[in-house]
């Protein structure tokens, strides 16, 4: 029974000491400790969040890079294609032009040749006429060397030139 009867002195001191202990520890220990713990947990959480965010950003950045790379590649391809096309076109144009020029030159040459030939032919015609007339004159002169033949011709001409 001795054990089960609380002593008044001990009750009193317990109440006083424990009460003071709670108050002092609450103000001077639990508050900074619990705040510190909370703060640390917060820090750890935010650090983890940041790491997660950074990882996501890195992934995004990588994706962006890849996209950019793909775009660059596509652009390069298109530029190359365009360059090739324009090169082809230039070559084709040049070829066409060259062909046309060649044709024109040939045409010109042909025309010049034709002109030359025509000039030569007309020259030759003139020459032939002159030569023929000379020959005819010489022949006629020889034929009409005597008087009878002249008279005969005149008479023939007169006969022919009768009034019709």
């Amino acid at each position, binding site marked *: 029974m001795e054990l089960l009867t609380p002593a008044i002195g*001990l009750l009193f001191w317990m*109440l006083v000491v424990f009460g003071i202990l*709670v108050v002092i520890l609450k103000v001077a220990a639990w508050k900074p400790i619990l705040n510190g713990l909370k703060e640390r947990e917060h820090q750890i959480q935010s650090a983890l969040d940041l790491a997660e965010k950074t990882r996501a950003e890195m992934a995004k950045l990588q994706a962006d890079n890849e996209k950019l790379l793909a775009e660059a590649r596509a652009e390069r391809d298109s530029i190359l294609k365009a360059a090739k096309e324009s090169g082809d076109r230039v070559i084709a144009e040049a070829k066409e032009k060259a062909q046309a020029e060649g044709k024109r030159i040939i045409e010109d040459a042909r025309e010049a040749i034709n002109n030359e030939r025509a000039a030569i032919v007309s020259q030759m015609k003139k020459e032939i006429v002159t030569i023929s007339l000379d020959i005819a004159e010489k022949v006629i002169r020889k034929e009409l060397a005597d008087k009878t033949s002249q008279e005969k011709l005149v008479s023939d001409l007169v006969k022919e030139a009768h009034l019709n």
Partner: protein
Amino acid sequence: MFLRHKFLSIALAIFASVSVVLAEEPAHDHEHKESKFNIGEMIMHHISDAHEWEFAHGLAIPLPVIIYDNGLKVFSSSNFYHSPEADHEHHIYPYKEAGYVLEHEHIYKIGADGKADKNSHVLDFSITKNVASMLLSAVLLLVIFLSVAKGFNKNKGKAPSGIQSFVEPIIIFIRDEVVKPSIGHGYEKYLPYMLTLFFFIWINNLLGLLPGGANLTGNIAITLVLAIITFLIVHFNANKHYFLHLVKPTGVPAALLPLLVPVEIVGVFMKPISLMIRLFANITAGHIIILSLLGLIFMAKSLGSATTGWAVSPLIVFFSLFMNVIELLVAFLQAFIFTLLSSMYIGSAIEDNHDADHGH
């Protein structure tokens, strides 16, 4: 870290049991010469409060006696214990000059017949062994936790160091595994009390295991105060659902109310009483078991000879070492249970009725 703690605990246990043996032996060897060894008396002497702090027989620190009897009187307890008329056998220590007598650690006025006047009402506020031990534990708690708090300021944004890293996991454990789930929303308000409660009980349980330590948490006055504080916190914070539930439990037929309401009301008081008894009984029982085991050595000695006493002691030391290790666990466990149950009582008193109703 856990390993280190385990090692420390075991070292402490070995130290405790060996030193208890060393401390007890001369004490009761002496007693044996005077009278027959009385194991019951020895145990009661060790688990009860005293007005001096005895480490071993003859090695005791006198403590101040403070009594209120028509005015405050303060004197040293050595006036009682070193009294020329001291009767050690019957534990009667008169202090004639002041007119008081210490009989079985109770202070009475000396009556006209020269004996203790059992009807005198002397209020004893002495710094007894238990009070001294409590003050020591309070100082220890302040030193430990103020240095931990300082560590938090010093190591801001850094990893904890020193004692901080030892105590911190325990604080987190109490917060996250005991208080938070039991109380629920608004648990922060009760956290300072719960942490103080836990560490106060734990450190005093451990101090009680030390050789010469006081059986503080195994004293009903201590557990009574703790239980009353918890009781008051519960009932000052309880919401109207809690009180309504007492007089009209939900889902109970009206015919059963006369039976159930008294049960509910008894339950209100049974909770703190169970808290009080549980801690008191567990710690006192632990002390009694260890003291009984150690007492067996002296029993053997008084029944046989000194050789018999020495012969049984290795086995007894082994058993008491085993018990000490168990008591280390109990020291933590009882502190944990007291805190957990206090939290749960608060939690059940402040929870919203919506949740409570689903249980019925």
